[in-house]
């Protein structure tokens, strides 16, 4: 999705936007290659199909705005805390300073952080929402991601609504050191409060969800859904291979692997995600 589109969509929530809109600025006759099966697909067709490859069912990564477009009732999403942005508190520098990395990520993604939070409607039900974006520094969780999550958790709680968090993350943000690590505790604390109000929390794990995000709010949900084919785990596959010197089994850490091992409630095809969420929200409403 282009920056312009995204801004339009965010600023004019009353304007009706269809799922296809975000792709409409790209000419229909542009081809792109499926990342999995390498088949050439019209960009338009891929967009119409929610970026799920029509040939091999591979779920290409969505940006947070794309995901919001997909699951929210058109024009209902209102972002919160869009102005919260990260600072380079530790003055962390690897080959580049964290400050510069932040600046570039913002420019590249047109996002202010790796998560968008707000209130919106799904299937006519009002919900609290947080959607992570892997394209912003690998969806990593720093202090601002933590703070935005905590704020939306309490805001959702105050309005007595269910909460949906769509995860996509490589884990904690190293450049914020132990501050990012402790966001896990901070967020889980807020979720404890949320839960003790009998409110429902649903997490959706998309490709990839690993590290500190998985080991905190991703698995603290009442109902855990996973997108088809998503990689989900605590340790990354390469780390495991290096540590154990073992070949990883076929499909290891993929959504269906985890379903078989009892770790998630359901595997959902992206095209069914909104319907499944709506279904659960109906159950929540019907109690």
């Amino acid at each position, binding site marked *: 999705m282009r920056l312009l589109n995204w801004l339009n969509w965010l600023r004019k929530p009353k304007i009706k936007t269809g799922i296809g809109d975000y792709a409409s600025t790209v000419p229909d006759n542009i081809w792109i290659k499926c990342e999995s099966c390498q088949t050439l697909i019209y960009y338009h067709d891929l967009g119409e199909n929610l970026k799920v490859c029509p040939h091999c069912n591979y779920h290409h990564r969505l940006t947070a705005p794309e995901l919001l477009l997909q699951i929210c009732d058109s024009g209902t999403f209102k972002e919160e805390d869009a102005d919260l942005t990260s600072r380079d*508190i*530790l003055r*962390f*520098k*690897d*080959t580049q300073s964290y400050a510069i990395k932040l600046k570039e990520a913002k420019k590249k993604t047109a996002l202010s952080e790796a998560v968008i939070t707000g209130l919106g409607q799904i299937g006519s039900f009002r919900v609290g929402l947080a959607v992570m974006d892997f394209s912003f520094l690998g969806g990593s969780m*720093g*202090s*601002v991601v*933590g*703070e935005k999550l*905590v704020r939306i958790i309490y805001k959702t709680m105050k309005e007595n609504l269910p909460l949906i968090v769509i995860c996509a993350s490589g884990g*904690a*943000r*190293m450049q*914020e*050191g*132990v*501050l*990012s*690590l*402790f*966001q*896990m*505790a*901070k967020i*889980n*604390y*807020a*979720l*404890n*409060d949320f839960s003790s109000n009998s409110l429902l929390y649903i997490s959706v794990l998309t490709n990839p969800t690993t*590290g*500190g995000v*998985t*080991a*905190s*709010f*991703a*698995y*603290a949900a009442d109902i855990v859904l996973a997108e088809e084919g998503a990689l*989900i*785990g*605590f*340790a990354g596959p390469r*780390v*495991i291979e290096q*540590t*154990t010197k*073992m070949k*990883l*089994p076929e499909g*290891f*850490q993929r959504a269906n692997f985890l379903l078989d*091992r*009892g*770790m998630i409630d359901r595997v959902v095809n992206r095209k069914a995600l909104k319907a499944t969420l709506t279904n659960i929200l109906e159950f929540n409403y019907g109690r």
Partner: protein
Amino acid sequence: MEDKLTFELPLLEMEEKIRLLVEKEGETKNTAKLTLLLKKKEEEIYQNLTPWQVVQLARYQGRPRSLDYINMIFESFLELHGDRRFGDDPAIVGGLAFFNKHTVMVIAQQKGRGVDDNLFRRFGMPYPEGYRKAQRLMRLAEKMKIPLITLVDTPGAFPGIESEERGQAEAISLSISLMLSLQIPTVAVVIGEGGSGGALALASADKILMLKYSIFSVISPEGCAAILWKDEKYAEKAAGELKLTARDLWKLKIIDVIIEEPLRGAHYHPEQVARNISDSLSHHLNLLRSLPLDTLVQLRKEKYLKIGKL
């Protein structure tokens, strides 16, 4: 695992020299002078330890382990085993004990000593069932209304195929949530390596105390270097950037107290360090115990919700 603290080599050389001299000539003015120089050099090195040197100390094989401290700090520790689901993970030990005549629950990550014990305890890297045993014991502590004391010392949760199959991430997440929800005073003491989420699972306490030469980090310096610098050799640099020493965490307002260690580390005077831990524990437990439950809960909430708001 290397077994030597490389930055101590000058000290070791001086010690050897003094030893040989004393052997040959007995204690002389000369040896006394050299001993004084040694002391000075010790102070010089230990007052200027780099983060990477602290990492080496925190991981040092000879450093006292959880069970060493448990034996020195608590009375009649009775280990309780198993998660009542799948297994009993020796990388996490837990049980009832007396501290200052009061019953407490102690849960600790336990690194091994020697090859066999290290393999047995997976170098202190827990399996999911380790965290689930911890959860069971946390619930028992809450039911018994006794304080929970945890000792943190792990490179991280074990990264293995079985770990993922049995839900390492879920186990850590639930452990953090549960520990934060306990209606009892909780104190965590980081005694060596506080490695990532696998350490946090036992460290989400009312008070977090850290030994002076222990570390707490979002990722190992080596792992960080491999990802950000694409080269593990930058681990030393990463150690500095990550802000992982007790002093760093205290400045970042994440931990409450730094517990003193003697020059050259806890392994030089384990009993003294055990007494230091004991004194600090005593102080903080008494304080937490004196609070009404709702104040305890409120303070915990404030502590955790403010993290990162600098």
